[in-house]
């Protein structure tokens, strides 16, 4: 048995440790502290007053915050489920079918994930554009002009336009993860299913999904946190949170309060609240999808 180079290992972890402390832990502790103060952009340090829970109390009387919270929850309820559903189906088709263009589709579906999210936002705002947008044009061609509307300017549709863009850009990413997981399932299992007379749909629901339960659980949590994070950029680019707050999300409201209104303390309180939601939901969904081992 060779002696472990303890010192060497310690030194090697040092850079990562230092970076984590300087760029993650310290700012995070600072954020927790700030959320209990009335700090503004210019009074971060000594001039700010400790206000204890005032920021958190204000949060629940602030109708814009509540609106942003509702919108975020709506997105979290809808986006991960649809994203994972489609990514699973695509992954299944790409691995199980005998399509010759498989690798081409794999590339195309993954493509949105490597484009900058700002670009995704701009592209989709053109899709939903009231006069030049492809969606309104399609509706016209299909003789459905009565359904045409200013998609991003209508409070009933703006949030769902953002959801559509979120789903579109995320499907490919999770598809690749699921492809890898499906590749890990022994082909014998599918062969056995085929011998038992299972068709593709049955294979998908009775073999693939149960075998991928653990992976799906992990990707679901990833997708939840992705929805919280990415909805900020898309909402900023596509609608600026409008109309009248109908598509604002938590992180965007945090940015508005922190950067535009210069209320650092309040913004940090919103950030802490968002973090708490993300953590709680992740724990719950891990419990439900169950890692039995």
């Amino acid at each position: 048995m060779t002696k472990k180079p303890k010192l060497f290992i310690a030194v090697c972890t040092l850079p990562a440790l230092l970076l984590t402390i300087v760029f993650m832990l310290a700012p995070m502790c600072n954020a927790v502290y700030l959320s209990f103060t009335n700090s503004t952009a210019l009074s971060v340090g000594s001039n700010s007053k400790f206000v204890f829970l005032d920021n958190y109390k204000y949060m629940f009387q602030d109708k814009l915050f509540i609106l942003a919270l509702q919108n975020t929850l709506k997105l979290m309820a809808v986006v991960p489920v649809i994203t994972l559903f489609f990514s699973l189906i695509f992954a299944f088709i790409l691995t199980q079918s005998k399509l010759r263009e498989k690798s081409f589709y794999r590339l195309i579906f993954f493509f949105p994930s490597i484009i900058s999210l700002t670009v995704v936002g701009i592209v989709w705002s053109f899709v939903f554009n009231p006069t030049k947008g492809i969606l309104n044009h399609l509706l016209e061609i299909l003789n459905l002009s009565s359904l045409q509307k200013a998609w991003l300017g209508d409070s009933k549709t703006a949030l769902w336009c953002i959801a559509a863009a979120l789903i579109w850009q995320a499907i490919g990413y999770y598809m690749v993860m699921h492809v890898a997981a499906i590749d890990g399932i022994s082909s014998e299992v599918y062969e056995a299913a085929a011998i038992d007379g299972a068709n593709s749909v049955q294979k998908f629901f009775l073999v693939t999904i149960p075998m991928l339960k653990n992976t799906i659980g992990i990707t679901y949590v990833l997708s939840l946190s992705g929805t919280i994070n990415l909805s900020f950029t898309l909402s900023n680019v596509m609608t600026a949170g409008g109309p009248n707050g109908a598509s604002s999300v938590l992180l965007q409201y945090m940015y508005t309060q922190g950067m535009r209104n210069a209320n650092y303390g309040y913004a940090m309180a919103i950030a802490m609240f968002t973090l708490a939601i993300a953590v709680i939901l992740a724990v719950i969904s891990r419990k439900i999808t169950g890692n039995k081992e």
Partner: protein
Amino acid sequence: MKRTVIALFIALSLVSVSLLGCGSNGNETKQAEASSGETTVSTGGEQQELNIAIFQGGYGDAYWEAVVELFEETHEGVTVNMTISPTIADIIRPQIVAGNPPDFIALNDTQEDGLILSLIKDKALLDITDIFEGQNDAGNGTLKDDIIDGLLESAKCAPYGDGVVYLAPFNTGPQGLIYNKTAFTDNNWELPVTWDDFFTLGDQIAEEGGRSLFTYQGIYPGYLEEMLWPAIASAGGMEAIEAICSYEEGSFNNEVVLSVLGQIQKIAADGYLLPGTVGMNHTEAQSEMLLGKAAFIINGTWMVNEMADAPTEDGFEYAMTTVPVINEDDTRYILDSMEQFSIPADARNPELAKEFLRFLYSDESVALFAEHAGAVYATKTAREIAKDYISEATYNMYGIYDGENTASLIMNFEALPSNSKINVSDEVFNPITSVMNGDMTVEGWAQSVEDAFAQIRADREAESE
């Protein structure tokens, strides 16, 4: 042992390299080249640096390049480091927070980024009253007397209501209903004076087909301030505006304001609004109007410059008229598009910044602004100086002030208490989209603004405790 030392060295170098990145200056400061070209340190420490941060908006950057060059030529030993960007606030905000602000800022307080508002809230701007009390650049009078009357006293320049000037006026220009003069002449349409005229014209245009009466910059409903404030001032007088500016109880939810909000709602409710407007950004709405899809758009004189490359309908000729009033003999207010300069209280070189500011009001600078940006400084002689440089269309738009029964309107809310979490402009204008979509009543709109005002009054009390 030797291996450990090497590992330690590599690990440390990794850390130091990544930390080095933090120290470097990340912004894209563009050093304006002095015409002399040489920046060698001269004797006696006369070498001075001025850091200026400029918002690059519809007027472009040519004026700033030119005026900086002229300033360096006329001020020996001065180097101006200019950062100019459409997102200037995002660039300088971290510098200001870190206690290293630029010496001079050209950025408006109505800008989406809210930077100047937060500096006002935090009382972080330098008192610049002395510049205006002092001599002008030519040395033939007080600078104050060169500036258009009423600007320096307004809340735009003296935000705390005590007459102390913290923000300097940059340009001035009318904002109102922009229309295509050719279309109006060809179709024998009459310019509306009252709201009734406005909607009658709308019916006439609708009958002729192909065009809506009005459009605005949809997803940025804040542009409608150019319509809302003049309309309220016309209906309720300046008292109504002053009450709103100081967030008085009942200043927004009252009969006068409701009657004006009702007219704005009617634009959409009765089908006078260009379909799809609520989903357009400013460029899209402006392009549609230029193509003849709408007879009017609300905007300022910069639209000529901003949309210079956009296609228009045949024979398009810019013209501007006032926002409709309720009764024919009401004063027709015109909201001024004044932008602002400011000097941060922590500026490293405030004296040179003040000198630069004084220089900006000189005739040479005013002429350069007209030449390169096609616009007019907020000085009394600026329009005359600019006459030779600006386009006829722009010059004619300035003629709106010469119309019958008109008056200029400067509108600015009083400074917010520093603990306030309200964004007044959002509170007033964001509901417009809901009103236009029919999701909100004007009473609901007025009440939501009143609620925000109540919160601001409460914040004020909390702060003064």
